[in-house]
């Protein structure tokens, strides 16, 4: 029964309660603002309780959930991102003239966050799978919140539904095979036991990997991301790019561990990383839509992250933590700037050409956006610089020369398209200044400022960001032992 002895990281019940309260409030009287407020408060509470849990974990590692530094770190990132995203979309929907009440939006956001957190904390296939699906289904709903035109939103939802259905099925099939092999649902790669041939666990692992790659949008499985992000409203795109990626990456690291990967995985990862970096960057070159471009860039960044994942060593944990932070802060910053720039009845800021001359009309926003983009490109003084530096360091330490080559080439290509946006902002303005968003919402402005400060401070003093998060290799120790045993 649900007793004090069940191990459960506190943020999960806090979120559940929050969602229930929100639901109840909605049932009582619908109010968008109240929903948003409830969501914010819930997330804040969850953040406060981030490091805590109820009950005690089972010694044999059979608990459904796990809580360690890594999980806490990614959970904090996720909750923080969710808060940012809620903030980004707050009055956006409240002032939407076409629909009077859209309080499902914060509800779905919260549900998505819950799913992501569940994945992060899970130590068992079952919560992992449930979290994944909660996140996925919430996203399907969220994607359709686009104002105008509506059709792309539905189309995106449809694509996401079918594709994620396929990938979930693949992943589940893999999980089923793993379960069949080991008889346990513990969240770790299956190992051969008894008379069962080793081919089966291999195929199970690969299928799980493919499912995760789909959610991570690594290259052969990346196509949905562009369309879905374009079809989705800007904050939801941010959600897709940040929250769901962090969650799945967190699970990936937990699942495979941070040690040496078995050779067959190594090969596949090698290929996928190179494809991801090259494909993501090359695709981004020709995009004219900012959200699509960011989708491509997030694909590329996943590739960079995977390099660190593939290079176990002293620097790995630091590289992954700082890179996640850099990616989160910078991407959120870009999306926040887009949201700040967008107007209810003017340009929505997703087409790059609309940004022409922003440097002259909105110098602060333009500077902030430039800083974020530079950080994404890995140029000082943004935090992304140090993050990329760390990634390269792990690569060098492990002598993954091919990957480093891809990193360099990808970075140079990336530099081009990031700078291209800055270039557009610096060209002479073409829009009549009337159509500009004159009144940026204060909370959005505050968000942009906060993210800017994070990016700069993180870039100048990365040690502060690096230090407390270091013990990242906090996968269950026995898993590690098994990994090394193999």
């Amino acid at each position, binding site marked *: 029964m649900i007793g004090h002895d069940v191990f459960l990281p506190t943020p999960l019940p806090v979120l559940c309660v929050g969602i229930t309260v929100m639901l109840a409030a909605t049932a009582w009287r619908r109010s968008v603002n109240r929903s948003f407020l409830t969501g914010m408060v819930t997330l804040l509470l969850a953040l406060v309780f981030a490091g805590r849990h109820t009950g005690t974990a089972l010694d044999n590692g059979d608990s459904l959930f796990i809580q360690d530094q890594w999980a806490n770190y990614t959970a904090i990132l996720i909750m923080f991102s969710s808060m940012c995203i809620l903030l980004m979309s707050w009055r956006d929907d409240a002032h939407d003239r076409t629909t009077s009440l859209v309080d499902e939006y914060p509800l779905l956001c919260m549900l998505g966050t819950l799913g992501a957190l569940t994945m992060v904390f899970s130590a068992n296939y079952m919560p992992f799978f449930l979290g994944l699906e909660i996140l996925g289904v919430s996203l399907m709903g969220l994607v359709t919140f686009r104002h105008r035109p509506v059709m792309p939103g539905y189309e995106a939802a449809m694509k996401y539904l079918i594709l994620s259905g396929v990938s979930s099925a693949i992943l589940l099939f893999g999980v089923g095979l793993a379960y069949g092999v080991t008889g346990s649902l513990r969240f770790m790669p299956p190992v051969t036991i008894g008379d069962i041939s080793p081919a089966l666990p291999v195929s199970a692992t690969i299928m799980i990997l493919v499912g995760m790659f789909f959610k991570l949008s690594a290259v052969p499985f990346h196509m949905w991301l562009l369309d879905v992000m374009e079809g989705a409203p800007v904050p939801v795109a941010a959600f897709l790019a940040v929250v769901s990626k962090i969650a799945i990456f967190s699970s990936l690291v937990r699942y495979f561990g941070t040690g040496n990967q078995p050779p067959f995985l190594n090969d596949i990862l090698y290929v996928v990383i190179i494809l991801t970096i090259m494909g993501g960057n090359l695709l981004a070159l*020709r995009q004219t839509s900012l959200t699509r471009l960011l989708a491509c860039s997030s694909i590329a960044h996943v590739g960079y992250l995977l390099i660190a994942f593939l290079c176990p060593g002293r620097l790995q944990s630091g590289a992954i933590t700082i890179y996640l932070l850099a990616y989160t802060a910078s991407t959120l910053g870009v999306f926040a700037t887009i949201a700040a720039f967008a107007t209810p009845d003017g340009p929505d800021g997703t087409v790059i050409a609309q940004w022409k001359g922003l440097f002259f009309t909105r110098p602060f926003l333009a500077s902030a956006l430039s800083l974020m983009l530079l950080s994404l490109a890995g140029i000082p003084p943004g935090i992304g610089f140090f993050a990329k530096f760390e990634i390269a360091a792990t690569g060098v330490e492990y002598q993954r020369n091919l990957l480093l080559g891809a990193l360099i080439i990808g970075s140079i290509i990336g530099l081009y398209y990031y700078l291209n946006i800055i270039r557009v902002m610096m060209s002479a303005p073409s829009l009549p200044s009337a159509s500009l968003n004159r009144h940026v919402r204060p909370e959005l402005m505050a968000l942009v400022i906060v993210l800017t400060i994070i990016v700069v401070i993180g870039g100048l003093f990365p040690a502060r960001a690096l230090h407390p998060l270091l013990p990242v290799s906090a996968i269950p120790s026995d898993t590690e032992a098994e990994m090394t045993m193999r």
Partner: protein
Amino acid sequence: MGEILLPLLILSPLAASLILFVTAGRMSAYAVGTVACVSMGISAVISVVLSVLLLSGPATGIVQATLWPWMHIAGFSADIAFMLDRISMVMILVVTIVGLLIHIYAANYMRDDPGIARFFGCMTLFVASMLVLVLASDLLCLFIGWEGVGLCSYLLIGFWYDNPVNTAAARKAFYMTRMGDAALLCGMLLLATAVGSLDIGAVLAAVTNGQVTSSAVNMAAFFILIGALAKSAQIPFQTWLPDAMAGPTPTSALIHAATMVTAGVYLIARLHDLFDLATPVMALTAVLGALTILMGACTALVQSDLKRVLAWSTISQLGYMFLALGCGVWQAALFHLMTHAFFKALLFLTAGAVIVRTHHEQDIFRLGGLRHTMPGLTAAFVIGASALAGLPLVTAGFYSKEMILSGVWPAHFRLTHELILSGHFLWGMALLGAFLTALYIFRCVFIVFFGKSGTTMRGQTSRFMTIPLGCLCVLSLCGGIIEMPTTFPPLHLFSALLDPAASHSHADEPGWLILAGAIVPLAGLGVAWVLWGRPSPVMREIPGQAAVIRFARTGEGIDMLYDRLFVQPFRFLTWLTRHDILDYVITGTGRLARTASTSVLRARTDFLGTLALWGTSGIRGADRLLGQIQNGRVRWYAAWIAGGLCAALAMAVLS
């Protein structure tokens, strides 16, 4: 005292130059002229004082002034240092005195030009550079002056920059001398590498001591020779000098007489110890000098521009000096340099005065009969012409030319064991040159000053212009008697001055050599009178078709040849490569990357289409399939997922 005066000597014109440049356009023309002339006067006085100081000292005494260290570094050191010895003493006297006269002349000549401050700024700088060149005790320091005169000549030749022809001429002069400079620099680098210093004394000592290998000496001498040839407009660099006439006449006088072109001669004379050890280079010098004599004279013979005639004559006369240097009689070269400075300055200044008074008419065939309207100038020009032609006994040119000829006769070059180049042959060429010299210069005299008057005159040559002319007349006539051939009274002041220790035994010199040297110019004069001087001249106009004349125009032909061979291809090539090729390559790569991105995009639609093409029909074109398949399809995305799964599994299978 000398240590103080030596820098002052250079500083005086330099300061004048600075003053003139800084105050450009604020001072009156008169003040500008005064500043320039006074500064030149000061340096002339100083140089005289210095000469007296030097001569009063011991025979091998020098005045040295080391100002400050320039570059001291492991393996090499150079100082900003000046040194006055007998050779440079001759040079500074020539430079300052002739320079002073030219400046006085120019102050009047350029009176009305708006750019007079710039003009005199450059002129004084020119003299200063030349003084640096002459006085430097270090080859690197000498190079400052060496390039400085080049720069100043560029600025002065292109002084009237309104006309593109002038600036083109200026650039040509600079480019050609710059090539020589580059070679000279190479020579210096070689010496610096071998010796570790470029101090002239140290270099010569090292060379004579045999510290430097003979091939290095030969190479260094060769490089330095090229530099000297370019500076002195010898074959094959002769083409810039005639064009340099584009500048104001005093400039031409300065370039031709006192500074610039004599630098090459001076340099070789200064380094004669080095050249003495490089026999092939000496032979080359002599041969090129002899060739230049003839080429310059022939070309001068057919020129119709008064100043051009004088320019080619300069080239020709410099040929004499190089011949003398090549034959090892560098004293003779310096002597000729001095006398040449006198009479060539005289000729140019006179020509300038004539040109000013005839409304800038320079074509000799449009002038004529000037002796009636300007007898003074006629006299001055005739004196100059006589000195140039070397009319015996009365002119300075005779003595110096005689010294060269007598020095050339006994020379011989042992190039290899079998091949010996005899000086007799060179002597013959020089003699022929002397004949031609007389011929062409008196052609000028007869055409311009005799015959019918052709142009209108104006004004009067001002007093300030006549004073220098008078001085130069005297010098041209009497400047030569300080050194006489041995058959004459044994007066060897000049050689003694330069090289007191040397013995003067030209005993083996046959007496008829002098006679030949004396008669040949007179013969030239006679022929010229026959051809152009009589009331009904034999040749009034140039018969352009005559083969001999065309042959004589080689000097200009070579110019054309250079133009075709070097200048035009260079222009064409730079025009062709005006865009950066590498830039194109990079841009192309960028375009390639963009294409790649497009094809990546297309790949997600192509993949299955291609598979289907292979699998099913193989008949229908891929195009139609492509047309049916569009982007953004869920099924294709799903297919990619399935494909990725297949590939991943296959990798696991294969591994």
